[in-house]
């Protein structure tokens, strides 16, 4: 038996929707955010509409049941039911979307607030555009020394950072559960791999209070590490972050 076109279209939509839920929520065990799912489904629906209506015969077949429902005198009863049920459903949907809840409002955070051109740290003015990790050069010039520096950074990290950022640098330290937003996951491709070392230096040295106005009200509990660590220790810990995660800092020059 041939499935009517309208039903086909509806089934495709339901199938894709359930597919997303199945893949993300069940198989991958990482829920698909409802905001993303809503956007995805909107454009999947647009695509289904395009495929089902680009030629005349198919379109006629698709809208035939709807046309019949509206026009045919014999379907008066079902028409009246549909004309009541659909607006009621739409109204209910709107109501449940708008009804105030006890949840905290959804927040749109900027993950990487833009850095200022220059910052004041350790009592001096530093130009972030030109700032470089003084130890990075040893990676090629003196690998032994570089290893030592990374090990130094590891020590600093374990003593200071892992409580929040985790001993695997995945943002799941012992204190992480108590923080919102949760500490940064350095293993993620979207974090330190996207940034220059000077950016990390800025974030570590000046912490939450050093965030620019656009990130206000800052809700980061990152301490101002220039009060606790030396400049050298910060640069070493940055080496460690990249070394352990296997990521490369963003750079403009070809260092390959």
């Amino acid at each position: 038996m041939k499935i009517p076109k309208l039903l086909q279209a509806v089934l495709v939509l339901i199938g894709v929707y359930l597919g997303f839920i199945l893949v993300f929520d069940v198989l991958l065990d990482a829920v698909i955010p409802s905001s993303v799912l809503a956007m995805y489904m909107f454009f999947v629906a647009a695509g289904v509409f395009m495929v089902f209506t680009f030629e005349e015969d198919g379109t006629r077949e698709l809208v035939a049941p709807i046309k019949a429902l509206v026009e045919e005198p014999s379907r008066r009863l079902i028409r009246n039911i549909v004309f009541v049920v659909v607006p009621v459903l739409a109204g209910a949907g709107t109501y449940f979307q708008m009804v105030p809840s006890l949840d905290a409002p959804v927040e749109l955070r900027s993950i990487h607030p833009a850095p200022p051109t220059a910052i004041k740290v350790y009592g001096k003015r530093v130009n972030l555009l030109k700032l470089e990790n003084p130890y990075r050069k040893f990676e090629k010039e003196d690998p032994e020394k570089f290893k030592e520096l990374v090990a130094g950074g590891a020590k600093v990290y374990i003593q200071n950072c892992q409580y929040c950022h985790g001993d695997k640098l995945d943002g799941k330290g012992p204190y992480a559960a108590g923080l919102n937003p949760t500490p940064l996951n350095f293993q993620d491709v979207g974090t330190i791999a996207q940034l220059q070392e000077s950016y990390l230096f800025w974030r570590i040295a000046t912490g939450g209070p050093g965030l620019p106005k656009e990130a206000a009200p800052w809700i980061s509990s990152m301490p101002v590490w220039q009060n606790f660590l030396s400049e050298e220790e910060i640069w070493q810990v940055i080496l460690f972050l990249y070394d352990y995660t296997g990521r490369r800092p963003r750079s403009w020059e070809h260092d390959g």
Partner: protein
Amino acid sequence: MNLCRLKNLKGISTVLAVGILWLLAGDAFGAETASATGVTGGYGPAPDLKPSDYPQVAGVNSRVTIWIVAQLHLWFAAFVLAVPIFVFIIEAIGMRTRDKRYDDMAYEFIKVSITAYSLTAIMGGLLLFCLVLFYPDLFRYMSVIFKDSMFYYALLFFAESAVLYIYYYGWHWLQGGFRKWVHLTLGLLLNAVGTTLMLLANAWLTFMMSPAGVDPAGVFSGDAWAAIHNFLWNPINIHRFIANIAYGGSIVGAYAAFKFLTASGAQEKAHYDWMGYNANFIAICALLPLPFAGYYLAAEIYAYSQQMGITLMGGLFAWLFIIQAVLIGTLFLSANYYLWCGMGRSDGAKRYYKYIKYIAIVLIGAFLVWFTPHTLVLTNEELKALGGPYHKYLGPLGIMPAKNTAVNLMILFTALSFMFYRRANKVATVGWVKAGNAIQVALFTTGILNIFFLGVYHGYFTNTVYKVAASIPQVLTTLIVIVASVVIDSFMYRRSQEAGPLHWGRVPPRSQYALFLLAVSFTWLMGLMGYIRSGIRQHWHILDIMRDNSPDAFTPTLGYAANVVSLATILFMAMVIFVFWLSQVSGSKTLPDGYWKE
């Protein structure tokens, strides 16, 4: 943050504007003469302004006013600069094929742009007034540095108008043989003048983003070329030149759709269907390379200032980029839908219908990746379930390599749609059809594999230098696949048979609304991106040199910005419909009974 961009002061209405420029620049000229003998060069630092230095005029919000006016001016300017480019090409095609339909279409295109031309000038004049009234100190500072280019700009407008009017009004006069060549040459000249105008105006606005030829205090070195040839000048020039063509095509497409939907006779419908098809073809051809030009521009912005780059893509404006991605995807979808609908013009198209759904699946799939946000909006429950704001599987889709791979696929499959469309009405007669098809399928296969290899391997397993570098072979792969397939096709369908006559006009009205959607999406997109480009300077008139301290300067929230852009889009669309309506009115005659003396 300020939006009083000097974006394309394109439409200075001739004498009046020259006069104003002269007056304003008067001091500067004087200063230069005086300093000819001096040592310092006579240029002062950029003024440090106080809120009270900005005049309040009639109680209006100066920033929003100049924002909307500049945007309207830009839209019209983009349109009237683009139309002569493809009118020139269509006229040349007409001359080569000796098919008069092309000549008529070219004439009709330029006719639409004539009314828009005066609106461009009016908007340009209004923009200039707004700058002088609301931001006199900024304008004075800019006009000292760009005094020569502004003056020549104003003079060039005479040339532009003169050439345009001869080109348009002389269309039917300059026909046949040598005269036609003279007319075509005028078209070329018109484009040369128009492009020069755009390049000059681009220099002024890119100077505000990446100032050059001035020291950190804003003291001008006197080297006007350095100020013009600043870091972002060429990236913007390339991007705008291509985008203007795509935009012009889409607006003309909307015009054709308007005429198609209001047409009464079958012949008229066929004509405007054909016109809409050609306009859409122009828009798509220019749309395909556009993402790469945009990528180049964004990369150069990043290279110039990490701060602007991060504000753009990762910080404050990141969500506007998601809207941008959605709109670009909409452009691709509506362009494809239009092509698919257009297959109904051919009786031989049924053979290809079964492939359409696969193209749609790839397009939609790539589109979803293309707009997956880097910064997810999560409810608290989702945040808890995920254990943090990072999504293990969606996160990697939020960054550039995934977007690049997706957009290359979208472009490839749009090209495929187009190839199917071209084949729809043809039956190949050469003996190697099977082999030709096999080679094309193989080419697409290896091309797609290569795009994935470059995107996945270099995007996720190397560093940023490799990541950025790999986007170039990715683009080249796409271009090679498209060009090679089209070449193979053209040989394969040489001396092919027609499946039947092409039924121009046999398209559903839905397809015409796709053309409207294309034009509206384009307009909205340009407004949004214009705001982003200008807005990433945040609280600077001229980045790091001249601060915007006006009372209305603040960084709008996303919703506020989107509303202003929407308002401007509606205003522009209303004016465009007015232009369309005028063309309708100009063609109709009323014969009043007994009104005139016999």
